[in-house]
């Protein structure tokens, strides 16, 4: 132990708060509905995100039905198929994953993990959720307007996004863009809270380098999202004006149905730059919180401190910074200066270095650990495997020469589902199984959980592994019906049918999960305050679930980092962050 100012502890008064400073809900409505408590807002965010996620899940079933058994389901025509892929992608990436990681996990965990009573601007935080809900409702409404939702693909590329050949050209695209604009406004309100809470509301002794990696991940992802979402905002506003007022920001001169349109001279490439300036950081906005959560799950359930904590922090920051200079690797086939392609391929491959550091550190944390194969641990291991998998195909696609033939094939679909579909959702599930006992005070059912894990994990691989192969065969993405094609053998169609069946099974496993969430709320085993024996601060609250103000009268004082597991000579195999050093405990000011 180095330079520890032990004697200063006498000068540390417990951080008591006056009664007036705590937020007190006055009625049932302000306690559970219009609540300003970050924990309630987190649950609201999570439930809304999972509800809309179920819609996207059903859409993926419909798509798989069509792909696996083309021509069998007469109610899915080409237009609807395009609408399904668009809404599935948009919902999963933005309204489910972004909202769940930052709005759900962020709201719940940041104040508890850094030892704060709540977010610093609770009212703005509440508004953030209601604006998000409005964005979701606007999105859902597109299913019921004339013409249905937009079918432009989740990237909404002009000019086709607002031309009459694309489904949802009437109302779908307008409401989609409006919903995105609302989402960004709502997110900005929440994001300001997360950042300022981490900066300002940490409890005594909680230095940045003592924060759990979950907080580091969510914090960095929030900063990135705050800077990147404006790009989507700008693109959405300009596309909306092109659609509504007939401006030509993005719309080139073109002929539609034999007639010259009112547009002229605009640049579709400009849209792509703006979209991907948001779109690439978005990948890491989803991945960084997952990285953080996985680090904490692995350390806790392997009863071992995280390997290379400093490197983990630096890697998170480095990934966050680098992800802003790689966006054009999504545009290799859009036509660009070859030197640009070279530049963006290089930066893309450089990101593999900090990412690989993280993977090595996870593996080294597991090395000779006391691995408990609990459900959160299973999901964490699945995350690592899946992320490595998706990352490796990312190296393929990051190279211009390999990307060009693979572009717009199922290979790309398989890659991004592995890396930002399956992997983050594994982190989400792991996180939910891990923190559910803190949120509700009860454990999730073990048997149902294991069933859910194995079906989801193996099923997801059954869907997406063969998809790589289909992509290498040259099977294009976004096609409603491949039909008879010379280079696609009949066996590929059988494979497609197999994948569809697997997808249906994986989807049903999620219903088991939802059932488990509800059933365990009432019938689950009592969890107690710290069922996993975890060291980080959120498990040390005086009550479980934590009450208003989180910490009772006094804020905790932090004496150590969040990963003191299996410390030699310690009484237990973990030392909570707020436990004073051994020499101090007799006169310690705090338990």
């Amino acid at each position, binding site marked *: 132990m180095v330079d*520890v*100012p032990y004697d200063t502890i006498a000068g540390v008064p417990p951080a008591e708060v006056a009664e007036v400073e705590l937020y007190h809900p006055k009625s049932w409505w302000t306690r559970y509905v219009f609540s300003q408590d970050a924990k309630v807002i987190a649950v609201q965010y999570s439930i809304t995100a999972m509800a809309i996620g179920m819609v996207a899940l059903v859409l993926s079933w419909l798509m798989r039905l069509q792909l696996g058994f083309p021509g069998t389901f007469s109610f899915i025509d080409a237009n609807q198929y395009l609408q399904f892929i668009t809404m599935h992608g948009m919902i999963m990436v933005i309204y489910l994953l972004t909202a769940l990681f930052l709005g759900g996990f962020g709201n719940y965990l940041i104040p508890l993990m850094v030892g704060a009573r709540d977010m*610093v601007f609770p009212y703005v935080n509440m508004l953030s959720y209601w604006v998000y809900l409005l964005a979701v409702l606007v999105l859902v409404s597109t299913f019921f307007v004339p013409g249905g939702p937009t079918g432009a693909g989740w990237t909404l590329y002009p000019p086709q996004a607002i031309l009459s050949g694309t489904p949802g050209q009437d109302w779908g695209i307008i409401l989609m863009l409006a919903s995105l604009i609302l989402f960004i406004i709502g997110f900005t309100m929440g994001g300001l809270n997360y950042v300022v809470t981490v900066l*300002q509301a*940490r409890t005594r002794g909680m230095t940045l*380098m003592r924060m759990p990696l979950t907080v580091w991940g969510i914090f960095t992802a929030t900063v990135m999202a705050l800077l990147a979402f404006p790009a989507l905002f700008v693109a959405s506003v300009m596309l909306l*004006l092109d659609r509504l007022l*007939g401006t*030509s920001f993005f719309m080139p001169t073109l002929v539609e149905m034999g007639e010259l349109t009112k547009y002229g001279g605009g*640049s579709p490439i400009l849209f792509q730059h703006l979209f991907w300036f948001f779109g690439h950081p978005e990948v890491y906005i989803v991945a960084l919180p997952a990285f953080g959560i996985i680090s904490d799950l692995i350390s806790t359930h392997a009863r071992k401190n995280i390997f290379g904590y400093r490197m983990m922090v630096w890697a998170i920051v480095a990934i966050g910074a680098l992800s802003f200079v790689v966006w054009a690797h999504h545009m290799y086939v859009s036509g660009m200066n070859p030197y640009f392609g070279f530049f963006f391929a290089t930066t893309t491959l450089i990101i593999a270095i900090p990412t690989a550091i993280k993977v090595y550190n996870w593996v080294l944390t597991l090395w000779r650990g006391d691995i408990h194969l609990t459900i959160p641990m299973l999901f964490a291991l699945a995350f690592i495997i899946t992320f490595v998998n998706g990352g490796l195909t990312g190296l393929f696609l990051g190279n211009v020469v390999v990307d060009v033939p693979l572009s717009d094939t199922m290979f790309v679909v398989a890659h991004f589902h592995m890396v930002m579909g399956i992997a983050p959702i594994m982190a989400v599930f792991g996180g939910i199984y891990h923190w559910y006992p803190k949120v509700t005070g009860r454990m999730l059912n073990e048997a149902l959980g294991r069933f859910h894990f194995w079906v989801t994990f193996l099923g997801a691989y059954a869907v997406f592994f063969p998809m790589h192969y289909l992509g290498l065969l040259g099977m294009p993405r976004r096609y409603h019906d491949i039909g008879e094609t010379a280079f696609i053998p009949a066996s590929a169609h059988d494979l497609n049918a197999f994948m569809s069946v697997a997808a249906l099974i994986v989807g049903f496993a999620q219903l088991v999960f939802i059932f488990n969430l509800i059933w365990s709320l009432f019938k689950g085993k009592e969890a107690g305050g710290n069922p996993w024996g975890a060291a980080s601060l959120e498990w040390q609250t005086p009550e479980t679930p934590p009450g208003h103000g989180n910490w009772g009268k006094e804020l905790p004082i932090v004496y150590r980092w969040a990963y003191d597991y299996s410390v030699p000579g310690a009484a237990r195999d973990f030392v909570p962050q707020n436990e004073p050093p051994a020499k101090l405990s007799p006169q310690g000011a705090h338990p």
Partner: protein
Amino acid sequence: MSAVILFMAGIAAIAGWWLSQQRLTAKPWLEEGVIFDLREESGSSSQAAKIGLGVFLAVVGSLFALFISAYSMRMNMVDWRTLPVPALLWFNTGVLVLSSVALQWAYMAARRGDMDSVSVGLCTGGACAVTFLVGQLLAWRQLNAAGYFVASNPANSFFYLITAVHGLHLMGGLVALGRTIAKVWRGAEVAKVRASVELCAIYWHFLLLVWLVLLGLLTGWTDNFVDICRQLLS
């Protein structure tokens, strides 16, 4: 995209400077016991609000940097016809400068505890800002009357769009300013008023700065600069 890259580089420099103060080379696994960081002395709620505003300004700055990027990319296309800048904009700029000066004056008065001057300063600032917005609307009408419609040329579209976004941000600021004025009239304590007035003044200076940059862009003064930036990156 050069404008937004420059902006992000600026943000990265600030973030890097801040991180360099945070003992990121610490070895937390060795450091048991109480460690204080600098923040603990200043962890008041007004400090949190100020940092919150700072982060928000970074978001707004990113938004405008992206508009500027889009503008500089689109203006290179062949159909771009720069529109004449109404003389009214110069008057508006002057009014916005006055507005900013008045709020700065109010802030200085708040530090002295001179609440009457604060009230005068805030009301003057607010009135000037409203005048600016009305002036912008009149400028729109002049352009419209002269046949420069939103959709007739991308230069026009950008002019209307960028001035509208800037105006909306100013209107948001006016809401905060109105609440501050109400606070002063209700006779709130000096420290709270001072914090609110400071936030308003910072926001106003920022919007003034953004407006000057936008004005340079819309009048074409910065074309040379934009060209240099573009050559740097291509």
